[in-house]
């Protein structure tokens, strides 16, 4: 990794820490995130009991906040990663097809992109979850299948550009079919900008998940998610500030890191730095 500045190194370190914390949550969490203890309701950070210390305090049902935040990171990152994967794959495929075949294929695909982009995404997500019922799987599907148009636009524009290059002509003359040209010749050369879009969408998906969970349409209680912890914490904000502050800070830092990482990635895949 050449040319990583100290600031960027810190961001990468934080991102890795979040991912490790999410993956290792069952092992590193000091308490069971679902175990209630009504005698220990809304205890401030640092309260010590026989079983250990509530480092970040407890919630309205006496559950350990640190454990819930760690498990909540799992939900946030899993929802974001899976929904970004779905929309990246689907959107890129449509963009490649539109850019390669052009004509009525492009008209059909790009008009549906315009249509999708004209619908407020969060409203569509709320509506769909409300109809299908809230669940982890539905949440991922809704986010995955409403967020593909941005990838399609980028993939379409990039494909149009790459398709005119002589090496694509050469592949045609070699006898390669459309599928091979798209997979081997075009996709690897448009992957950079798509990854940049995927990173910025990843940050957005974490916010969407938190937003939907806050509205009660995402991860369902008693399972923790940053959004649902904050939603409950809102009612106790004068008495128990830690319920909203800690998950909110995590959300803020993670999304900020992801977005800064995206900017850094964009600078690195800039066409001017290619072809050394």
């Amino acid at each position, binding site marked *: 990794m050449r040319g990583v500045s100290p600031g960027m190194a810190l961001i990468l370190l934080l991102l890795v820490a979040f991912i490790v914390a999410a993956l290792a949550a069952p092992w590193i969490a000091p308490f069971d995130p679902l175990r209630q203890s009504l005698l220990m309701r809304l205890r401030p950070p640092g309260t010590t009991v026989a079983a250990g210390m509530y480092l970040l305090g407890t919630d309205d049902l006496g559950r350990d906040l640190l454990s819930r935040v760690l498990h909540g990171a799992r939900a946030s990152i899993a929802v974001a990663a899976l929904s970004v994967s779905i929309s990246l794959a689907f959107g890129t495929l449509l963009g490649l097809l539109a850019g390669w075949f052009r004509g009525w294929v492009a008209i059909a695909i790009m008009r549906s992109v315009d249509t999708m982009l004209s619908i407020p995404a969060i409203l569509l997500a709320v509506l769909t979850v409300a109809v299908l019922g809230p669940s982890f799987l539905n949440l991922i599907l809704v986010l995955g299948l409403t967020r593909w148009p941005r990838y399609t636009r980028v993939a379409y524009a990039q494909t149009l550009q790459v398709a005119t*290059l*002589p*090496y694509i*002509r*050469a*592949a*045609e*003359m*070699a*006898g*390669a*079919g459309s599928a*091979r040209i798209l997979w*081997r*010749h075009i996709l*690897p*050369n448009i992957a950079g900008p798509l990854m940049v879009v995927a990173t910025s969408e990843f940050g957005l998906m974490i916010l969407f998940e938190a937003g939907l969970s806050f509205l009660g349409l995402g991860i369902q209680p008693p399972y923790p998610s940053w959004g649902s912890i904050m939603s409950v914490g809102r009612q106790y904000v004068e008495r128990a500030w830690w319920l909203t502050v800690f998950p909110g800070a995590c959300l803020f830092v993670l999304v900020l890191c992801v977005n800064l990482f995206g900017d850094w990635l964009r600078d690195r895949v800039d066409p001017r730095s*290619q*072809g*050394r």
Partner: protein
Amino acid sequence: MTAPVLEVTDLAVHFPGRTGAPVRAVDGVSFAVAPGETLGLVGESGCGKSTVSNAVVGLVPPTRGSLRVMGTEMAGATRATKHEIRARVQMVFQDPVTSLNPRMSVGAAVGEPLLVRGLASGAALRARVDELLEEVGLRPEHAQRYPHQFSGGQRQRIVIARALALRPDLLVCDEPVSALDVSVRAQILNLLVELQQRRGMASLFVSHDLAVVRHVCDRVAVMYLGRLVELAPRDALFAAPRHPYTRALLAAVPEPDPVAQRAKPRVPLAGEIPSPSNPPPGCTFHTRCPFATERCRQEVPSLRPLGESMVACHHAETLA
């Protein structure tokens, strides 16, 4: 005479114009390339020479006329037939930077034609790729590397190796050295000539550089505004150009010897090349020709034999 590798008859390629009138990039061109022969196609920018080469390799559909490769008609052929003919004609592009996929190893690029046509795979494919790389003066270990690790001249060698993979009968070279440093041009040209002789391959060599054309071509076709104005054996063309446009082109080539340069007849051309979407009537060159008469303004000259040459000029005899 043996059957030609490529026979082009009355080829026309028109593109839809922005303002309605079609752009007549190529408008009635006929020529043939014999086995093992190199035909040069010269002309200034925008005369349609690259469009001719794109039509020959099947990247641009002809609007009119016939294109026969090894006796098989390409115009209006089925997909399967086109797929077969395309293996007989391969192309070397102008810019070696954009003619190689930056994300594909050299070995994968050179072997792709063999792989996708099911002619070789696995160890046999690697062996063929190694042979091809050696044939163009590279080393087998270069197959693992990526295009950005090579210089312009080396990249053009890789492009040539890829074009040779299917053992084509005709190699279309579209300005193969004009993007290269002068110092490596000769190497690439000599490589092309040598490969052609060894393989008995014919070549259509498109260039605007007359010195290069003189070095590699057996016959030369001169294009102006989508039409052929002269088609002659190399020595005849350079010694005794018949068409006024050919004369102007040759007169514009600078001589290395200042004495020879000063002694050279000057044939200045007035004006700009007319728009191919609105070509002048009659001889398309009459707007810039110092010898143009009323007949030139009305009657389109056909390409007719004169000595060793073919020339499309009403006054070729009187000018000689």
